């Protein structure tokens, strides 16, 4: 069903288009958003014949096949009902918002968010597996955050958005955990499998855990007690958002989840107790609180909470008929509450305030809106001949019919009647306070009727309320049947319980409960108005002083403080401390594997083995020089010489152990390092200042150093005294046949692991460029003694003689590298050292000004050129139809020379060579050039 994909994608496409419009494109963005919503509604309606015929429409493409996840959509009766609510009311909200939004508000942003939200909601109801459902669920949290915080300049909007995101987002995480558990129990997260596996799930020991996690998701989303407090704060959103999110969509996602998973999770004791009690508490708390709100939208918000509690309670009763009633009330509540929110928005829009203590007697200023608002409020109160009455009667009947334990038997009907009484009272307050009760008080604007297109959506919704209320079986009957059937059984075919949709059921107990509720509600409202004066009440009577918001804020503040304290304790600004922690952690990480009782082979006892005299001498020199470096580290020049000695000892180690390439590289790098440090030392103090005497710190550092040293030594010995299994036989065997070179080390660098090398020369080039950026054009001034430079003639002559030879040697090393010790790294270092010697001997006068003007001394070009050659060599193998960096080689016959070994890897090595020369020179020169203009010889 490609139409299904189109339906799910339409809002996203619309959002992408609207997002590209300029902020002033108010009308165009409304048109596009409206078109997307209307087209989506049309697609939903077009699917009606199939769905009402008992089909389940599907669409699926593989998403993460390795995890058995498909991107699957599924449209059954329940999903169809919600899709209709989402798209249909969405279209009305777009029309309404087009007139509601202030010219100063950026309309494209609003409609983009609205369409994003619509897309996420459609995703939730259409998703074919639980993981996908959770994904869209979290997307509704995110997009509702954007919508609630639309007026981001207002702090209450930001706070409300943050609160809604935190609570519904956290609930979404619980839901994810629950979905994963269900997937674990049933072996699949596909909805068809899950809905058919109810008995398996209920019998599983993890059932209670999964149930509580899923319910946490549903309750936070549907603003159930005690998570209800985010919803009133979300009223800081523009009214179209409230009308959309809190009537038909966002908060309905929670009850949708209850309905959706009812076949899988419902039908058990824990389900009955948790869902029923939470629903009952929410129903009563919401209805009671709503009476005492002065804000029009606040009243509607708490009434929404109460009605959501009613629906939750119905699902909790765990009776087929109650589920039918719950689905019916979802439909009815969506229609009358969307209309009420829109009326509230019109009143706010035309009066400039929503305070019910000031807006009074609006009937004569806006009679049309007043009529519509009063009708919708009557539906909310459950007045006969309106849709709210029908589902409320069913609700009363179900609370009576439920056979429950002792106290619950009478608690349920009593609670239901009391809540009905409260809802009559707050509905009456809405009608009486706003449209009657004297004259408006001190309004910012003179109220008058709103534009036609703003009232039109309200009128349509109120007409629906009337139509369903007058002829329920003909209007809502078929829709209720398919939706309730899907909610009850999850798959088509199974029959619905017998029920009758009629306005008149005769004189019975539910009717008596309704009568008590209406009479009691009227008496309560007018009693409060007369004897207490509702307008004077600042705070909810008989309720705890600190609500959920205070708890939330306290937790948030505590979290921020804890994070700050942790940061402050870790981030002291002392690098020594950070490094100590780092070293300690590294030691711990190295130690950890040895603490467990995993299988270990015993380590050979440490013993000195036979070694030649030369080896011992070199090792001794190395160790002594290392120790001397530590002792003499404050005299920096001396320390530098000693480090050089250590480096040479390392170099000799490589020689001894048959690694000529390493020995050459180490030797050359040693030279370059010493030159670099000498250059740097001219700009640093000649000696390190003594550290302040802190015995404890010294002890800690010594301990860390000793632990690191012995730890690494032990690790080395443990490694060396065990048999090894190397993969290198492959490289050795294939070096000639595949790489065409007899120097296996070089073949590995430029061929087998060429991609590593490409990464390494890139890092090298980046380091050089960062150094250049740090020091180029920088003139040290503070705390720096400007040194003088001398350029002895003998050195100049020697350097000039050396440069051509060094260049020749360098090229030779590069060319032979594939077969003999050498290669790009070594050859590059040789050339760089010769060039640097010229620079040191001549000072800034070399290269000559003419060459410098042409940029011959700008070695950054070498970096770029080298990297380009290396990448181009790699890419050339694509052209030959092989993967990146595949090398090939041949022996072309040159007259007079014979067969010349030529491998494409040699070209790659040329790139390495250029980068090494360029990078080394950029690094050295960036420090050497610091002398320019400061005391040095120009």
């Amino acid at each position, binding site marked *: 069903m490609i139409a299904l994909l189109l339906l799910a994608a339409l809002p996203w496409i619309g959002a992408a288009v609207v997002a590209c419009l300029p902020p002033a494109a108010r009308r165009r963005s409304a048109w596009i958003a409206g078109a997307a919503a209307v087209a989506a509604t049309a697609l939903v309606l077009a699917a009606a014949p199939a769905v009402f015929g008992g089909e389940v429409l599907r669409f699926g493409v593989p998403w993460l096949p390795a995890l058995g996840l498909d991107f699957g959509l599924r449209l059954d009766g329940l999903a169809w009902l919600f899709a209709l609510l989402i798209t249909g009311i969405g279209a009305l909200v777009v029309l309404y918002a087009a007139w509601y939004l202030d010219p100063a508000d950026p309309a494209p942003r609003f409609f983009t968010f609205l369409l994003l939200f619509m897309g996420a909601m459609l995703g939730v109801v259409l998703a074919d597996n639980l993981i996908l459902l959770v994904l869209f669920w979290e997307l509704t949290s995110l997009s509702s955050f954007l919508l609630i915080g639309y007026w981001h300049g207002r702090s209450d909007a930001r706070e409300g958005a943050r609160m809604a995101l935190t609570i519904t987002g956290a609930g979404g995480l619980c839901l994810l955990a629950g979905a994963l558990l269900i997937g674990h129990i049933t072996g699949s997260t596909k909805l068809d499998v899950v809905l058919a596996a109810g008995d398996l799930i209920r019998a599983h020991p993890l059932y209670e855990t999964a149930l509580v996690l899923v319910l946490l998701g549903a309750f936070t989303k549907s603003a159930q007690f005690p998570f209800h407090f985010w919803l009133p704060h979300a009223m800081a959103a523009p009214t179209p958002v409230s009308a959309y999110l809190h009537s038909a969509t966002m908060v309905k996602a929670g009850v949708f989840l209850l309905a959706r998973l009812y076949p899988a999770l419902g039908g058990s004791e824990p389900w009955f107790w948790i869902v029923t009690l939470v629903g009952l508490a929410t129903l009563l708390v919401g209805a009671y609180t709503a009476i005492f709100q002065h804000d029009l939208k606040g009243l509607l918000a708490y009434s929404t909470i109460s009605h959501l509690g009613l629906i939750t309670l119905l699902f909790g009763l765990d009776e087929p008929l109650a589920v039918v009633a719950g689905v019916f009330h979802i439909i009815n509540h969506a229609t009358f509450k969307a209309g009420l929110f829109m009326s509230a928005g019109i009143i706010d829009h035309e009066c400039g305030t929503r305070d019910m203590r000031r807006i009074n007697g609006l009937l004569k200023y806006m009679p049309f809106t007043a009529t519509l608002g009063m009708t919708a409020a009557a539906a909310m109160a459950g007045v006969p001949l309106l849709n709210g009455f029908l589902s409320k009667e069913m609700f009363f009947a179900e609370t009576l019919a439920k056979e429950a334990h002792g106290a619950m038997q009478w608690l349920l009907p009593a609670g239901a009647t009391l809540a009905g009484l409260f809802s009559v009272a707050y509905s009456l307050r809405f009608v009486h306070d706003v449209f009657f009760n004297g004259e408006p008080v001190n309004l910012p604007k003179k109220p008058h009727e709103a534009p036609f297109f703003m009232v039109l959506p309200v009128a349509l919704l109120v007409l629906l309320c009337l139509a369903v209320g007058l002829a329920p079986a003909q209007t809502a009957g078929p829709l209720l049947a398919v939706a309730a059937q899907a909610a009850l059984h999850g798959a088509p075919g199974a029959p619905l319980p017998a029920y009758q949709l009629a306005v008149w059921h005769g004189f019975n107990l539910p009717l008596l409960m309704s009568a008590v509720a209406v009479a009691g509600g009227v008496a309560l409202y007018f009693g409060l108005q007369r004897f207490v004066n509702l307008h004077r009440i600042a705070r909810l009577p008989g309720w705890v002083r600190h609500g959920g918001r205070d708890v939330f804020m306290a937790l948030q503040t505590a979290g921020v403080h804890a994070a700050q304290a942790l940061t402050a304790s870790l981030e002291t600004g002392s*690098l*020594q401390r950070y*490094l*100590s922690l780092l070293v300690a952690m590294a030691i711990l990480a190295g130690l950890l594997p040895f603490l467990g009782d995993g299988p270990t082979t015993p380590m050979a006892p*440490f013993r*000195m*083995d036979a*070694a030649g005299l030369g080896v011992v001498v070199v*090792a001794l020199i190395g*160790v002594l020089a290392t*120790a001397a*470096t530590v002792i003499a*580290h404050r005299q920096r020049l001396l*320390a530098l010489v000693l*480090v050089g000695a*250590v480096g040479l000892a*390392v170099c000799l*180690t490589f020689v*001894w*152990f*048959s690694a000529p390439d*390493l020995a050459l*590289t180490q030797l050359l790098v040693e030279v370059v*390092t010493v030159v*670099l*440090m000498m250059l*740097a030392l001219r*700009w*640093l103090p000649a000696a*390190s200042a003594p*550290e*302040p005497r802190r015995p404890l710190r010294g002890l800690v*550092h010594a301990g*860390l*150093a000793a632990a*690191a*040293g012995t*730890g*690494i030594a032990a690790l*080395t010995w443990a490694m060396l005294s065990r048999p090894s299994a*190397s993969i*290198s*036989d492959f*490289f*050795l*065997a294939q070096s*000639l046949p595949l790489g065409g070179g*007899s120097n*296996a*080390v070089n*073949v590995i*660098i430029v061929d087998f692991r060429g991609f590593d090398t490409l990464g390494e020369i890139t890092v*090298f080039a980046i380091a050089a460029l960062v150094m250049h950026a740090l020091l180029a054009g*920088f003139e040290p001034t*503070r705390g720096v003694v400007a040194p003088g430079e001398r350029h002895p003639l003998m050195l100049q002559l020697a350097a000039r003689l050396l440069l051509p030879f060094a260049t020749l040697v360098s090229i030779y090393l590069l060319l032979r590298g594939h*077969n003999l010790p050498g290669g790009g790294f070594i050859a590059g*270092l040789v050339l760089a050292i010769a060039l640097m010697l010229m620079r040191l001997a001549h000072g800034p006068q070399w290269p000559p000004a003419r060459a410098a003007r042409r940029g011959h001394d700008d070695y950054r070009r070498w970096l770029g050129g080298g990297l380009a050659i290396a990448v181009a060599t790699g890419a050339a193998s694509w052209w030959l139809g092989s993967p990146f960096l595949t090398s090939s080689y041949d022996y072309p016959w040159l007259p007079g020379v014979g067969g010349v070994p030529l491998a494409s890897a040699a070209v790659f090595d040329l790139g390495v060579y250029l980068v*090494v020369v360029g990078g080394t020179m950029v*690094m050295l020169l*960036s420090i050497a050039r610091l002398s320019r203009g400061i005391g040095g010889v120009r």
Partner: protein
Amino acid sequence: MLALLTLAIGVLTGCGVWLLLRARSFDAVLGLTLLSYAVNLFIFAAGRPKVGADPLVVPGTPATLATMADPLPQALVLTAIVIAFAMTALLLAIALRAHAESGSDHVDSKEPRQ
């Protein structure tokens, strides 16, 4: 022979860490240099270095680890040497710049309270 190598790696590591934890930037750079020697030798040691092994493949004779040096750790260490140099250079540049900007070569860019 390998015992000496083990000892040397241990001493280099210990001394490197000690210098790394000093308060002056140049000392820390020296420490890093010593540490990089230690790390390179450690990786090199993983190839079970042999004395008198053939470093190069001779055409016509079988090339196996029995007679030859292990090329893989060598290739890794070769690039590591060059990268370590680049890191030393970069740190020196930062030390220079920090010293010139703050007037102190302390690693925290400010002289400690005495």
